């Protein structure tokens, strides 16, 4: 035991599955085994050969009772269905979500620009707010929105610039899902 800790041995390099993020030997317990296997075959063929050999699969099975095997199989199916529906849902959410860039008139000719809906695209709102502040050298803050979620408020009329900046810098944001709108103060009569 004592000499086992020779300094070159650690830290161990660990490969994690590019699909489900677990060590590949655990992929079999997730809902994405098919995809996991394809990924492993592509990226680490030697490991794939070891983990998915007929022998390995049989050995895995033999250590479980027949009843447990059946349960495990059912369980795996359920998980697969769950994973598939979660993915579909996430995709749908992405497709239907919108980022709103709102130009808001504060005073005459004074504007702020509010950006909502970033969270649906997996963006870290605080980080994006910081990026805005840096890029446009202006005040940029995160506030909670009454309906839940957060928005970024940037000082100045920067709607078009923010639109371009979002599309250029955040690859997960499709152009069709960004909308520019204007929120005018109620015009005083006359």
């Amino acid at each position, binding site marked *: 035991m004592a000499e086992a800790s020779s300094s070159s041995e650690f*830290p*161990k390099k660990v490969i994690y599955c590019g699909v489900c993020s677990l*060590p590949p030997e655990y992929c079999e317990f997730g809902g994405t085994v098919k995809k996991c296997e394809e990924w492993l075959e592509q990226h680490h063929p030697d490991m794939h050969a070891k983990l998915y050999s007929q022998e390995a699969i049989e050995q*895995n099975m033999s250590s479980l009772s027949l009843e447990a095997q059946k349960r495990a199989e059912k369980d795996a199916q359920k998980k697969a269905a769950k994973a598939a529906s979660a993915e579909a849902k996430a995709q749908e959410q992405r497709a239907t979500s919108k980022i709103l860039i709102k130009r808001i008139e504060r005073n005459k000719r004074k504007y702020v620009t509010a950006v909502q809906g970033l969270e649906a695209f997996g963006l870290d709102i605080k980080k994006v707010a910081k990026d805005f502040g840096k890029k446009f050298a202006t005040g940029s803050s995160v506030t909670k929105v009454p309906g839940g979620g957060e928005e970024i408020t940037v000082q100045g009329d920067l709607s078009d610039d923010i639109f371009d900046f979002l599309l250029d810098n955040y690859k997960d944001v499709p152009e069709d899902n960004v909308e520019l709108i204007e929120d005018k103060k109620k015009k005083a009569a006359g």
Partner: protein
Amino acid sequence: MFKKDISPGAKSKVKSSAQRAIRSKVIEQYPKLEPYIDDILPKKEQLDLVKLPDRVSLYTLGATPLFFQHMDDPLLPHLTLVHKYPDSFQLLRIDRGAIRFVLSGATLMVPGLTSAGGRLPDDDADEEGRYGDEDLEAGEVVVVEAEGKDHACMVGVLKVGTKEMREKKKGIACEAGHYLGDGLWGLG
């Protein structure tokens, strides 16, 4: 403990004095990590603290999660750290049948450890002595490996001692763990 997805809260820098305290705490709790402590917690690099739900603090170095802690309980290693230094922790092993339960967030039960595929300290089937030869007390931190797998799948705190487990062969073994694929794993 992290069955749901976690949205991490505020991140703050750990003061250097606190950073030193954490370092010595890690060495005290996991003496077998000492040879690697400069790689794990480099003296000159900034350690961050991320607040997680339910009063859990997570210590990270850059984007790498290292240890987490519920209030003032012991520091527990993130599984990615365990995978880098597997021999530096107190290990137990569950049988193959228990893996899918653990990975779905179920409480670890004693039979998963006392069955033929499981391993406790001082196990006759453990010829290399990988699982140690001294019994563990309730409250000790354990890393749980799995039959037929190279990498650990869970970290937790023992609910009962291993001697008692061997005698009773039933009940809860380990509660409130961190397991592969849970919300904390998702932050790694």
